[in-house]
């Protein structure tokens, strides 16, 4: 138990960064575009399967899957927005319409994965050497360290883009006040197309990281990640990039610690209880600011 707790906390921190990453890509589209992307988790799983294909079939390192997953899936996002995005946003109930549309997309993606890869759970076959590191008496799997390292390297880049560039500011502006974008001369359709492609690409990269962290994934895991993503962004505060990271961290810590003390099946329950508690105490989420939204 003595080394178990620090180990669990370290693991939770690694998972937390990845959950946060998952929320980050979701919040860009949900917060700014008002599109509830129910297929988000399936994009993530598609990213995992791209990693599987590259490592198991072609023998590449999972790191090589990062740019591949980003490229393929952002192209998919681009295409989907081109086909449906504008119509969904202009519909009278953008949230409901996008909910249904992306539920369909979700089914299509998981069915396609099922068709190509069969129903068996898969794992990446690549092994980092050494398999794990000893450090301060803790054992850390190499793959998890790589995943956390990649996430930690990408998060500052994403935050820099969101907080320092005019495009990022416009995206955050879209979360706060969509109508005002038009007044200052921003083409909402082009901004949305851009955000959508980036969001899908980031979800694909999240899939690569998840393939590194979790032992197995199947075409049916998508919905779990979608729900996890929404929980994380509601927990952290809708539309708050920083909140997504905090939400991911809080959820992972709760889930892991509860699993340790009360057993596997209670982990998720505890995570959701924290969500309920946060909503009761701070309806805007940990870092949400209701009054910033018009």
């Amino acid at each position, binding site marked *: 138990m003595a080394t178990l707790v620090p180990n669990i906390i370290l693991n939770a921190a690694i998972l937390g960064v990845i959950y946060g990453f998952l929320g980050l890509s979701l919040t860009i589209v949900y917060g700014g575009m008002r599109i509830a992307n129910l297929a988000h988790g399936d994009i993530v799983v598609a990213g995992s399967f791209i990693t599987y294909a590259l490592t198991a079939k072609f023998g590449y390192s999972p790191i090589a899957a990062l740019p591949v997953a980003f490229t393929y899936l952002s192209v998919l996002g681009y295409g989907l927005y081109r086909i449906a995005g504008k119509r969904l946003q202009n519909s009278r109930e953008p949230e409901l319409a996008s909910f249904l549309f992306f539920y369909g997309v979700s089914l299509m993606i998981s069915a396609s994965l099922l068709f190509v890869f069969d129903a068996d759970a898969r794992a990446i076959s690549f092994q980092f050497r050494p398999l794990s590191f000893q450090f301060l008496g803790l054992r850390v799997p190499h793959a998890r360290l790589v995943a956390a390292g990649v996430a930690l390297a990408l998060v500052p880049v994403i935050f820099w883009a969101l907080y320092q560039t*005019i495009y990022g*500011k*416009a995206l*955050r*502006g879209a*979360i*706060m*006040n969509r*109508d*005002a*974008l*038009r*007044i*200052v*001369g*921003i*083409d*909402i359709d082009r901004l949305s197309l851009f955000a959508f492609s980036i969001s899908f690409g980031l979800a694909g990269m999240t899939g690569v990281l998840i393939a590194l962290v979790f032992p197995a994934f199947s075409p049916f895991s998508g919905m779990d990640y979608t729900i996890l993503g929404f929980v994380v962004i509601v927990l952290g505060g809708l539309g708050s990039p920083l909140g997504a990271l905090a939400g991911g961290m809080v959820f992972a810590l709760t889930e892991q610690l509860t699993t340790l003390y009360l057993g596997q099946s209670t982990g998720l329950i505890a995570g959701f209880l924290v969500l309920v508690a946060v909503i009761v105490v701070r309806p805007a989420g940990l870092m949400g*600011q209701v*009054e*910033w*939204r*018009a």
Partner: protein
Amino acid sequence: MTELSSDNVKAVVAEFCDVSAAYFGDIHVLRNLSLVFRSGTVTGIIGPNGAGKSTVLKTFMGALKPRSGDIRLYGKSLAGVPNHVLALMGVAYVPQNRSLFLGLSVEDNLLLGCWPIRHDRVRTRRILDRTLTEFPMLGAARRNLAGSLSGGQRRFLEIARALLLDPKIILLDEPTAMIAPKFAADVYEKISALAAEGLAVVLVDQNIKPCIEVSNYIYVLELGQKTTEGTADFLQSDDKMREEIGRWLEVSGG
């Protein structure tokens, strides 16, 4: 030459030609409306609640498509022009409801106002610096979130942002609604100053008295139709008009 340039000052910047518009079906909110907005002129639009005053501005900005008639800018029809392009064409709009990004800093709100020229970083920087100097109140609060400003400060930030790209016409929808009287006086002063600089100012206002005082020309709307128009002096000398205005003031309580 002097005569020519004084003619230019009052040139027609934009006009509504027989415009009708509707939200749903046949419920017309604007009926056969013809309006002219000239440079160097404050054009006031007044009328009772529900007269369609704000709708005029929204239709100008493309939020509502004219069912018939034409809106022209510099003599050219705006039909089919995407609404985000208007900012680049010299049309600035300060809507009645909040149009700021409250979670962004004052300076970032202004930066987004420079979106159409974002590739010219030098010019963007110059415009931002100029604006922050011109509005010292905003300059002092440049790093603060727009959400931390008072109502009056927010209104000035909106106006400052609308002016960044040197518009030829600015549409103001109830610019003094819900702000402190001290700021309201400043806003009217700014409006006069803008017209003096040659801008076409279109002012929709519930506060009829100050609106008539600041406007050079006034349109009176009722149920989406133009009922009267003329200079401020003309309207104030008209007994029937004074009576009308008194009636709205009772109804709207202002």
